[in-house]
Each structure stands twice: as C-alpha cells, then as structure tokens.
C-alpha cells in the first residue's frame, strides 16, 4: 500500500472515524506508558543517563566522518564487507547485486526500519526473491501488506482478534485470539524459513566505531536466528547509528529498553563482530554491512536541526504523544511517525511532500520529556514550520494575513481597533457568525469577546479605587 505524508490530513480524518483502530492504539500506548514509567522510576540516575547519551550522540554526529572511517576500517579488519549507499536506489542496487552474485533465493529479515525506508521487501519480492519478515509484528503487517504503525511495535494498531482473523484468512489457521497460540502459528510457519534461507537481513541498533562491531536488540530471538543461521548476513544501517566505543553502549542499552518496551533490559542483545571463524565455525560465512545515507548527511549539515539524528528509534515519543494516541502511526504516511517522524518527514522527503508533518502537532512538548536522548522535538517542529513557510509551502492566504496582522500589531491604536471590531460585531451576531471558524466551532462554543476590553476596565478600576481612597 503506497502512502505519502502529503495525504496526512486525509489519513487523520479517516483514523479519527475508526473507533476500532483508536481503541487498539489507545490501549497499547497506555500500557506502554505505564510500563515505561514504572521502569524509569526504578532508575534513580535516569536523567544522568539522558544527558550522557546526548553528549555521546553530539560527539558522534559532529565527527561522523571520522567515526565512519574508523568503523569501516575496523569492520574490514574483522572480515566484514562494507558497502556505502547514498540513497534508496543505490542501496537497492547494491543489495540486489549481492543477492545475484551469491545466488540467494530466499531471505529472512528481522525488524529494520531502515530497510522499510528503502522499500526493500517490495523491491526484492518484485525481483522474485522470497523475502520474509520474522519479527511477529513485522510478519503481521507484511501479511496485511501494510507498513509498520509504530517504531518498535509494528502491529500496534491491530487487536489480537484482528490478528486471529488474519492468520485464519492468510495462513489457513483455525481462528484463535489467544496470544500464545497466535505466536505458535507464526513460529511454525517461520521456523522452516529460517533453516532454508540463504541470507538474513537485519537492521542495526548500535554500531561501535573503535571495534568494528554492531549490535541488534530484540525480544523474540528471531533476530538471533536471522543473523546466525543463514550463510550470509547483511545488516542495513543508517550512518547515524554509530557509537564511538564499547563504553558508550551500556548507557544506550539502559535507556533503550525502558523507553521502548518498559523492560529493564531486552531479552536478547546480539553482537556481531565478523563472520564465522575457521577455528569455531559458528555463524554466517559472510557478513556484510550497508551504510545508508539517504538524506542523513543533508540533515547533519544543518546545525540547528542535526539533533534529530540522535534518535535511537525507541518509540517513547509516539506513546506519550496526544496526537499519535488519537490517530496511530499510519496517519503520518511514512515509516517514521509520531513526533520524531514529524521532524524527519520534511527533512527526508522535502518541504513539499512533508509540508504538513510539522504542523500536525499541538507542540505540547511531552515527547521531549520522555526522549531518552533529549531531542527537543517541539523546538525542531517549530524550526521546520519556519522552513515550510520560507519555502512558500504555507497555507493559501496565510502569509498575507500574517503580514496584515504584523503591521497592525506594530501600531497599538490600529491593533486595538482591529480587535475591538469583532467584539462589536459579536454583539450583533451569534459568535459563530461573527468569528467564523467552522471546524473549531463544530464541537466548541465560540468564546465571547469582551466588549469593554481590558484597558477600559483598568481605567474604571483605577478611577474607582481613587474615589474610594478620597
């Protein structure tokens, strides 16, 4: 299903009418929030960790060129093949060339948003390569031909009844809504695929520059099988995912699990430091890593906005967001959604396709409070709104209106008249007619202007108090 953030207004309207979706999203986000809060409360040095993580990311992003070179050098030393891709097209070509060269017929994948970004599943399947998601949530959305609706919980928008029906329809399973039985159905289907696959494709949570290794964090052990069973492992990584050294890793692991799933630690942390050695003969014969730019260096170039590259994709900002809670992730129309997605959409896709994203927020700032790496998302949304306006993509007529308003506001007498006028009009007409705001007024009574206004009242107050003191 092709989606685009340029249709976000339409998606939002549709989502708001979908009570089934809203119940599922509300329930899932509330559960996630409670679990997060519970775990964060148990970590007294949580705020210290956030500051530390910020400092690490700042260093990495500001010296990314050096860290990337260091990482590449160390990967090669460890026998990992390193590929560089500037954009989606290049990434797809590199991957397909590799698939052809190595005679790969079937692929298993563990959860990776970066591969969603380059539409890898569709691309490979169209080329006739069997490509299967193995994370349960990803498997479900793949069966539904959808994109994930959450950064860490791809099928968050679905209930277990939805999933029961899906498995019945697509896999011919007997209907059940028992989570354990559903899991067993998927597991049975997937286990054979793991054993038969020629290649495993994973994402990367954190890559470590000074050791040329990386890790993949997960709960289902599907990533463990993906990176260890097939003869080739390909990891796809956005270039911002680097950490300088091993020492930084605990900071991020401690932040990620509570923020993402409300766990103290994830069930599995897979470390990949190279292909199987002759001595032990365990793991894939070949390990490849593809480093993807895809607009990241462009984002990095803007010092005011590069903080948005600090994101570790935990999804906490989605769960806390009162907008996300109402509409879910598909309403944003892209693989990165919620508050952080709204900052990334216009930066990755441009100010035309992404022009609505920074505005679909009430700027409440709850996201910043929970962000484990302290990305000031509401401030970045404001900067991006400015960019949209500067690019001439604002609402029709708005610029003119703002210009008139700004002129009036520089002239107090005129400004007072301009605001006095609707008050007089409102005396004659009902609020809705004097102050037309159809969408707003549909479910809300329009506020009444005070016909006297503050200044008149102030003068009266001062006159009265003078009188009484005389």
């Amino acid at each position, binding site marked *: 299903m092709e989606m685009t953030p340029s249709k976000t207004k339409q998606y939002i309207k549709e989502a708001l009418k979908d009570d089934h979706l809203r119940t599922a999203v509300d329930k899932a986000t509330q559960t996630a929030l409670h679990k997060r809060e519970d775990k964060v409360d148990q970590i007294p040095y949580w705020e210290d960790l956030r500051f530390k993580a910020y400092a690490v990311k700042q260093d990495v992003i500001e010296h990314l060129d050096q860290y990337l070179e260091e990482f590449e050098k160390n990967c090669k030393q460890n026998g990992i093949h390193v590929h560089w891709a500037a954009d989606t097209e290049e990434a797809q070509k590199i991957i397909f060339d590799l698939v052809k060269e190595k005679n790969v017929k079937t692929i298993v994948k563990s959860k990776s948003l970066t591969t969603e970004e380059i539409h890898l599943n569709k691309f490979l399947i169209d080329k006739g390569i069997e490509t299967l998601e193995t994370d349960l949530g990803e498997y479900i959305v793949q069966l539904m031909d959808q994109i994930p609706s959450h950064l860490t919980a791809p099928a968050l928008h679905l209930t277990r009844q939805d999933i029961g029906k899906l498995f019945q329809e697509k896999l011919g399973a007997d209907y059940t809504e028992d989570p354990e039985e559903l899991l067993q159905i998927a597991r049975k289907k997937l286990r054979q695929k793991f054993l038969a696959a020629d290649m495993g494709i994973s994402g990367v949570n954190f890559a470590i520059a000074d050791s040329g290794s990386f890790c993949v964090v997960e709960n289902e052990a599907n990533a463990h099988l993906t990176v260890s069973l097939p003869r080739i492992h390909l990891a796809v990584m956005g270039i911002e995912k680097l950490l300088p050294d091993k020492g930084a890793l605990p900071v991020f692991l401690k932040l990620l699990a509570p923020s993402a799933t409300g766990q103290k630690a994830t069930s599995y942390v897979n470390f990949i430091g190279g292909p199987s050695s002759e001595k032990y003969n365990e793991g894939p014969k070949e390990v490849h890593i593809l480093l993807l730019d895809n607009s990241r260096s462009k984002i990095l170039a803007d010092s005011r906005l590069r903080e948005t590259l600090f994101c570790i994709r935990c999804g906490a900002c989605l769960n806390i967001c009162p907008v996300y809670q*109402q509409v879910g992730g598909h309403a944003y129309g892209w693989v990165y959604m919620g508050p952080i997605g709204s900052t990334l959409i216009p930066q990755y896709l441009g100010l035309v396709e992404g022009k609505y994203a920074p505005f679909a927020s*009430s700027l409440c700032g709850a996201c910043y409070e929970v962000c484990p790496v302290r990305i000031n998302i509401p401030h970045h949304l404001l900067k991006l709104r400015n960019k949209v306006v500067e690019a001439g993509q604002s609402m029709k007529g708005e610029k003119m209106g703002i*210009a008139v308003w700004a002129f009036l506001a520089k002239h107090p007498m005129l400004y007072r008249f301009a605001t006095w006028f609707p008050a007089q009009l409102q005396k004659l007409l009902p609020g809705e007619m004097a102050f037309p705001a159809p*969408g707003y007024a549909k479910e809300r009574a329009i506020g*009444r202007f005070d016909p006297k206004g503050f200044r008149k009242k102030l003068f009266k107050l001062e006159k009265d108090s003078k009188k009484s003191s005389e």
Partner: protein
Amino acid sequence: MKVALFIPCLSEHMFAESAISMIKVLKHLGIEYEYVEGQTCCGQPAFNSGYRKEVVPLAERFIKLFKDKEFVVAPSGSCTAMVRIFYHELEIRDELKPALNDLSKRMYELTEFLVDVAKIDGIGGSFAHRVTYHDSCHLTRELGVREQPRKLIHSIKDIDFVEMEKSDICCGFGGTFSYKFSELSTSMVARKCKYIEESGAEYVIGADSSCLMNIDGYLRKHNMKARAMHIADLLAKSLNL
C-alpha cells in the same frame, strides 16, 4: 516591589476580567503594578505558525517597551515562554540581545511570580467548591511550573481540590492547530473534558486563557457540568475582591 503587566491578546479582548482579577490580587498582596502603554501581541501565533521574520519587529518592540522594568508579569504561561524562551531563537538585532537576556530573567508567569519571587505562601481566601487543575503545556514543559499554581490553590480555605487523570495532557488547542487540524484538536479536547468530568470538579482551573477558552468552549457546547476558570479569577473570587 513593582511589576509591569503584560496583558496578552486573549486577556485583553476575551478574558479582560481575568486580567483585572490579577491586578486585584496583586493589589491585595501589596504588590505595586503598572500597565505599559503601547503593548500589543508577543508574536506567538505567528511564530508558532512558522513566521519568524514577521515576529522580529514585534519582539524588538516588546524588548524596548519592557527592558527597564524590574519585573514583567503575564497571566499566561505560553506568552511568557514566547518571550523567555522563543525570542532567543529569533534574529533580534545585536544591540537588543543584552536587553533580551536580561528581560528573560525578569519575566514571569503570574503564579510563578507570586510563589517564587513574591514568596506568597498562601492566599488566605475561601472558595467552597470542588476544583481541578489543568497543566498548560508551555507553562509546564517550557517553564517548568507545576507546583506553584497548586500551592496557591491548596492555600485557599474550604476548597475541594482533586487531581484529574493526566492533568498535564494537552487540551488540543495549539493555536492555529485547532483550526488547521480541527477534528484532531476536537478529539483531544474531548478527552481532556472527559477527565475533567470524571474528576467531578465544578471548575477546571488553568493559567492560560487559550486552553481555558478551548476547554470551556467544549464543556459548554456539550452541556458538561464543569466550567473553566483562570487562576487569577479563582484567587480574586476566594478573596471576595
């Protein structure tokens, strides 16, 4: 101690009574005030809509008008945050920057000023009603003001204060957001009002007129029991001012 009042647009034209209440309370507490003539808008609506260049002259006007005042106090968290936080993101003329830095240290939202600067521990009045408090977003998360308004409310005799569920979740106003994404904004305010109603409060107290307008508009349209009230009005009423 003398404060210069900044009366934001909504306070001037829709909630003039709340601004008057603020003055009455200040007077009652023996705090001198002055109204600076020539003030208009801080520029927040345009800034939040992405228009920065257009806001610069307004910000510069504001800085010049208020730069020599000992304290500037506003009955609004979001307008205070606009000056204190967001003016620094604008391309203000260099010669005005020191004045802005200085002004940022002396500009306060009302409850913050009363508790943190004027060191008012209690208000002493009485208000025998059940009330709850809405944490407005900018006041809470940009300025970090959570306890000050609660402290003032708790000091009122006979008041039945209850915390509603998620008191700091956004009411969905968001300025032009409520117009551009009106359905979304509506579903957010509906949820806020559900929490207010569940608290059983007769009044939902807040420190930002914009949220209160939004919330009150929904409560009225849907014939819900509670009414929105600015904290300045609550303090003035409790003191029979």
